């Protein structure tokens, strides 16, 4: 129907976590988990530092990709002046507000550069013509400068959009939306470029001889699937917890499900394109990356990704009913979030364990450490803020939204 729904605005108390709600305890619980995780990392990692750094890298890239996916989700809504997703925007804003936290969680990796990236070992390029040729880009000082640049840019964009949205809650100034919309286009371009180079630096250079020009897009596709999958879990979970249960409707979940379905197919398209060209051209310096992943037990993970990151969710999410039922969408989201982790694990770990899949307790410890920090900080942040942008000029449109 058109506009006659009677939703005009929300009262702040409808959109905040009430005192005494169980979710108020999540920050403390998560922080406790993070502390336990860090302790486990310290104990186990001391014995096996190489495994620790690789495990940390996988989990770091996982949570970083969720925050970057969230930033893209919000920017694209500003740029397109989208109305439907306003009630979901603060979930995205909270996730990308974790980028400064991720910058701190990046620091442990700097202690293990030699363990992770063979090209950083002094003298690595001496007898290696290809590494010598790549040295103007692949050298430690420039690597550090770039990392600092990525995090500075991401934190500036995140802060700009987070503070703008929060300021609008107070002032109700529609000019804030207009200003943030003007920045959104350029910000998306900057985000795309920095995200591309970050994925090259932190994942692709694990195999320094290898290169794939589509790798940045591959990382982006995974990160966006990751965030939408997270959204598919968080939005239904909030409804079940009695938060925004009348605000987020099946119509909003339906659109989240469409994005999840669409970008699952997009991920498959990009992942296959990368594989296909390398497989067909059959150039040794390119095929080496896939060769490592099509040997031994890594083959199983490769097949799992084809079926689990594409085939199964593609058919599962195709129908309308699944997207509109909160628990069914959350099941799809949880499945894809796991697959997104497996995807990153499969990108990183064969460098450490070319002989086959070797799960480690440090994988769990690093995941709990970083995930605990991420969840603790995010839930601590939403405790103090409205769960939707209360005075966004398009809020009424989002509240009344229906799929045609």
């Amino acid at each position, binding site marked *: *129907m*058109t506009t006659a729904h009677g939703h005009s605005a929300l009262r702040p108390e409808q959109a905040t976590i009430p005192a005494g709600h169980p979710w108020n305890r999540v920050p403390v619980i998560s922080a406790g988990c993070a502390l336990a995780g860090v302790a486990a990392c310290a104990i186990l990692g001391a014995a096996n530092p190489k495994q620790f750094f690789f495990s940390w890298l996988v989990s770091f890239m996982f949570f970083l990709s969720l925050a970057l996916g969230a930033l893209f989700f919000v920017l694209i809504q500003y740029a397109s002046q989208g109305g439907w997703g306003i009630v979901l925007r603060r979930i995205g804003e909270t996730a990308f507000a974790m980028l400064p936290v991720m910058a701190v969680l990046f620091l442990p990796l700097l202690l293990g550069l030699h363990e992770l990236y063979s090209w950083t070992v002094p003298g690595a390029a001496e007898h290696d013509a290809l590494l010598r040729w790549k040295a103007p880009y692949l050298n430690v000082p420039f690597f550090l400068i770039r990392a600092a640049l990525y995090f500075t840019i991401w934190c500036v964009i995140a802060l700009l959009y987070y503070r703008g949205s929060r300021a609008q809650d107070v002032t109700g100034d529609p000019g804030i939306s207009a200003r943030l919309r003007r920045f959104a286009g350029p910000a998306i371009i900057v985000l795309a470029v920095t995200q591309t180079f970050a994925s090259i630096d932190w994942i692709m250079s694990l195999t320094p001889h290898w290169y794939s020009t589509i790798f940045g897009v591959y990382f982006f596709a995974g990160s966006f699937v990751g965030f939408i999958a997270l959204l598919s879990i968080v939005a239904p979970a909030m409804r079940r917890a009695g938060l925004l249960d009348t605000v987020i409707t099946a119509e909003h979940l339906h659109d989240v499900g469409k994005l999840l379905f669409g970008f699952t197919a997009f991920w498959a398209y990009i992942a*296959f394109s990368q*594989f*296909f060209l390398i*497989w*067909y051209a*059959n150039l040794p310096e390119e095929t080496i990356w896939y060769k490592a992943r099509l040997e031994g037990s890594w083959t199983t993970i490769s097949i799992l990704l084809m079926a689990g990151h594409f085939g199964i969710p593609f058919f599962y999410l*195709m129908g*309308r009913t699944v997207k509109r039922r909160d628990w069914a969408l959350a099941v799809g989201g949880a499945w894809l979030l796991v697959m997104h982790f497996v995807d990153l694990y499969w990108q990183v770990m064969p460098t450490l364990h070319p002989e086959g899949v070797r799960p480690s307790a440090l994988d769990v410890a690093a995941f709990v450490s970083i995930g605990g920090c991420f969840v603790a900080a995010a839930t601590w942040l939403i405790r103090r803020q409205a769960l939707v942008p209360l005075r966004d000029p398009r809020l009424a449109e989002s509240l009344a939204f*229906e799929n*045609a």
Partner: protein
Amino acid sequence: MGLLVNRLPPGPYYGILAEFATPADLYHACEHVRDAGFTRWDAHTPFPVHGLEQAMGLPRSPLPWIVLGMGLTGAALGFILQWWVHAAAYPLVISGKPYFSWPAFIPITFEVSVLFAALGAVFGMLALNRLPMHHHPLFRSKVFEQVTDNAFFISIESWDPRFDPSATGQLLESLGARSVELMESE
């Protein structure tokens, strides 16, 4: 489907055509016609009226299933065609790959699947709408010429079990129809 089933009601009357002044009038009239239990009827508007399918009580279209079936058929045919050409009928070594190199088949499998799904969508839609239909009894109504312009109509066909030439007309009048017309068959 349009070619196989009877598209127009038999008998002396096609049905009743009622004109409404505004989309809101039409919307409410549709709700009443739906609740009165009519099944063979339609609404005609110059532009899409949001939510009208709920007001009419229309079931969801079976078109998505047709598209899915056609897409899967296309994918299977595309894949089997390439397997047959490359591995069975005329095996050639191409760039040192095995005859049955399935990754090389994926782009064409995808394309044929999209082609079949798109054809299924277009022709499935036409068939479900009983199109093409070159003439329709409603076209003989003078007021119906405004249906693409500024008028809103409900037509109830005579083969609806609840259809009655006079009672149905009175119902539509009571729902605020600006004019009610009993349409004869060809």
